[in-house]
């Protein structure tokens, strides 16, 4: 009935997992109970579960990412705690088979279910408003994308309490990830949750590229699109070109595991190195998918709070597009040590260094935006300045690693781990936090508490350096990544400091949660209007929160920083609307597709083939039914 799933697959003997699952179940039960007692089920269904409004979908993405951040961060705390304890005779508290799942889950969750949803959520919320559109090009597909991402997140969360997760690291190299060496369900959870979420991401990219190229307010030329929307365009073009490679590669690994294929096996002609090339041909563009929106966020924040236009708009656009192209030329730098030879390594070392150039152009442009401006040091600006320092340092260690002979001593050391956390936290995490603070008032109509926000920033900032600078040092001293135990006493003080840094970040996260709770409770006193920051772009021209249709009358935005120009000249032109606006109706398609994606994925993982068969049929039926329905809009009167 349940395939190969039995009660023995629930890890009753592991207290940490059981404790976590208990807490999660209690929390979920609490939420369900609240919804029942407060009679909010219909509200939830109508306003959130079946919404196709890009603003609501963006908020749900951010909520998903924030919740998964807590899970990924718990994994991080477990790893730092393990390494703070586990030297010489002390085994720590996480045996290797558990520790391996922790670092694999940490990476997979942080990249796919924290960073991606947070970044995609912000793009979803902001881009249509910035380009003067009423919604994205395909609103129902937008909801489907969100729900598929949530389905993938649910699958990976189920692996905690039912079965196990992969022990292969977040990129699941074969032959370790093949059936011979990973016979359990862990790698299958990894594969199916990523494939389901991957479909969502790809559809989201189709949506946003079409939106930016086809649904701008009339008159908005390409070179007057706000910088964040430009970076959103570049990001989604990257997704379109890179994610299919991930889909194909994971599919090939799935075929190896399920049907006895030999794409990447050790025998019968399989080629594990091909997996590594393919996965990083996706993997390197992926990090630019994460970072480009962050660059866009910082551009918006720094221009607004310097009271000046962004310096070098044209060069920012060019630099973004150059980064987009070069992102596809550097992938071998993830495996210089794996036998490509000096000539190939030299080529990729050079391309890696080259990509630092347009990035440097952007850093200079941000600095020159501040120069001569009147800078207000709000918490978004603190995140931005923290980013400029932290990301630049991380980028420099990246250029250091791009020298192949140097990489031969540092590949897969903690130096590498410190480098990529340096750039991801410095850019993506700081960018998301800055962007969330910046656009939160627009989304909800009230601002977040600034003092708690600044306190959280300082904890994250100093916590980051305390946690990761020691890792650079032990990396240089020879410590490799993914160790659950070590014997070198020289490393201990550094690992203890790193643990302290993780704790400081923990305090920062607690402050952020407190900030949210306090701000919500006192929201009546912190209400804002349309333009709390004296912004420059069109999203600040509508109320906070905006009406469902965004703009009562579409703006005539023919210059850069059109809203700012309108404010300073006093001339604001719009396209008059006679009568009613056509808006898309709600749709339950996303929710039900996700339901069957979870059922089907779970069935495939546990070899309960009937579940997969039912799900495929149901998904086809849902899509056919969707295509039959033509009545998908309704008219609203703008108020």
């Amino acid at each position: 009935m349940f395939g190969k799933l039995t009660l023995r697959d629930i890890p009753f003997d592991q207290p940490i997992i059981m404790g976590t699952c208990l807490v999660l179940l209690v929390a979920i039960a609490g939420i369900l109970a609240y919804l029942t007692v407060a009679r909010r089920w219909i509200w939830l269904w109508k306003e959130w579960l079946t919404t196709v409004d890009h603003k609501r979908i963006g908020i749900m993405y951010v909520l998903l990412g924030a919740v998964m951040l807590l899970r990924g961060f718990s994994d991080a705390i477990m790893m730092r705690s393990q390494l703070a304890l586990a030297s010489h005779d002390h085994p720590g508290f996480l045996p290797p088979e558990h520790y391996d799942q922790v670092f694999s889950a940490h990476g997979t969750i942080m990249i796919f279910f924290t960073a991606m949803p947070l970044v995609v959520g912000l793009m979803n919320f902001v881009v249509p408003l910035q380009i003067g559109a009423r919604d994205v090009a395909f609103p129902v597909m937008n909801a489907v994308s969100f729900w598929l991402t949530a389905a993938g997140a649910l699958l990976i969360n189920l692996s905690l309490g039912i079965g196990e997760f992969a022990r292969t690291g977040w990129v699941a190299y074969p032959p370790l990830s093949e059936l011979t060496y990973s016979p359990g369900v862990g790698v299958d959870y990894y594969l199916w949750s990523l494939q389901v979420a991957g479909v969502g991401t790809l559809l989201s990219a189709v949506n946003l590229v079409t939106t930016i190229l086809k649904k701008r307010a009339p008159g908005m030329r390409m070179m007057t699109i706000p910088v964040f929307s430009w970076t959103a365009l570049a990001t989604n073009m990257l997704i379109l070109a890179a994610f299919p490679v991930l889909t194909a590669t994971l599919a090939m690994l799935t075929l190896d595991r399920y049907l006895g294929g030999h794409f990447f096996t050790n025998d019968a002609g399989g080629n594990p190195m091909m997996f590594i090339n393919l996965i990083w041909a996706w993997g390197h563009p992926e990090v630019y998918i994460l970072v480009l929106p962050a660059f866009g966020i910082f551009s918006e924040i720094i221009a607004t709070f310097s009271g000046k236009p962004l310096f070098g708009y044209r060069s920012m656009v060019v630099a973004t597009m150059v980064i987009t192209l070069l992102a596809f030329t550097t992938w071998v730098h993830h495996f210089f040590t794996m036998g490509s030879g000096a000539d190939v390594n030299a080529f990729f070392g050079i391309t890696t260094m080259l990509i630092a150039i347009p990035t440097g152009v952007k850093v200079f442009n941000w600095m020159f935006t501040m120069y001569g401006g009147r800078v207000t040091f709000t918490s978004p600006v603190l995140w931005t300045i923290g980013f400029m320092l932290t990301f630049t340092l991380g980028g420099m260690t990246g250029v250091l690693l791009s020298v192949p002979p140097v990489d031969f001593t540092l590949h897969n050391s903690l130096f590498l781990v410190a480098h990529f956390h340096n750039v991801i936290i410095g850019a993506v995490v700081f960018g998301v936090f800055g962007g969330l603070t910046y656009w939160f008032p627009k989304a909800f109509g009230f601002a977040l508490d600034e003092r708690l926000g600044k306190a959280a920033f300082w904890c994250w900032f100093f916590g980051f350096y305390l946690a990761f600078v020691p890792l650079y040092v032990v990396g240089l001293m020879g410590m490799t990544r993914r160790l659950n135990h070590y014997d070198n006493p020289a490393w201990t003080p550094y690992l203890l400091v790193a643990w302290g840094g993780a704790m400081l970040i923990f305090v920062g996260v607690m402050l952020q949660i407190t900030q949210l709770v306090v701000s919500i409770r006192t929201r009546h006193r912190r209400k804002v209007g349309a333009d709390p920051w004296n912004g420059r772009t069109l999203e600040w021209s509508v109320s906070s929160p905006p009406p469902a249709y965004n703009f009562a009358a579409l703006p005539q935005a023919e210059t850069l920083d059109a809203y700012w120009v309108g404010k300073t000249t006093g001339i604001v032109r719009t396209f008059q609307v006679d009568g009613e606006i056509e808006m898309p109706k709600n749709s339950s398609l996303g929710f039900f597709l996700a339901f069957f994606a979870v059922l089907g994925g779970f069935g495939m993982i546990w070899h309960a083939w009937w579940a997969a068969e039912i799900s495929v049929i149901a998904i086809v039926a849902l899509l056919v039914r969707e295509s039959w329905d033509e009545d998908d809009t309704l008219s609203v009167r703008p108020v």
Partner: protein
Amino acid sequence: MITTLSEDGAPQLAPDPMPTRQEVAGFGFYLYLLSDGVLFASLFAAFAVLRSATAGGPDLNSLFELKNAYFETACLLTSSFTCGLAMIGADRRHLRQTQWLFLATVILGLLFLVTEVRELVSLAKNGFEFSNSAALSSFFTLVCTHGLHVTAGLIWLVVSMAQIRVKGITPAVFRRLICFSLFWHVLDIVWIAVFTFVYLVGIKP
């Protein structure tokens, strides 16, 4: 941008009219097709790397009966032609022309699939299975991925024909037919690549 005259007679640029829902849908679908192209490119890359990894077995080319591939190509290319004629009929709202030509497309597509399935089944029966070697894994995957896309397309087409029967060619139906025809033509192009690089390349004279 189009030039118009403003109230005082001076020429000014008026923005291009907003694209229609059909244009937007077609563009978005085209982007999805590009991404599908990257998916196939990855499978082609894997095939190129693995085609000679036969684990001691015979060259892949020696296993193929080219007349099957020629027949499949003829079926699929002709089906693209009938699809194009059907779309002309749909554009003119000539229901009978549309439906008959779509039916021809379905039949030709089915002929393609049946021939392909029979070829693959006979290979498996002769001991050349997906799980034997990397070369066979990559061959079966590339060909079957294309075949699955064709299958999905045929289901789509049959459902579309049913919708035309029940509802006629409404704007929504026509919009989706445009997307279908893009899909079908791109599948044809992918097949040409499959035919060339899998079946033709590597033939010994």
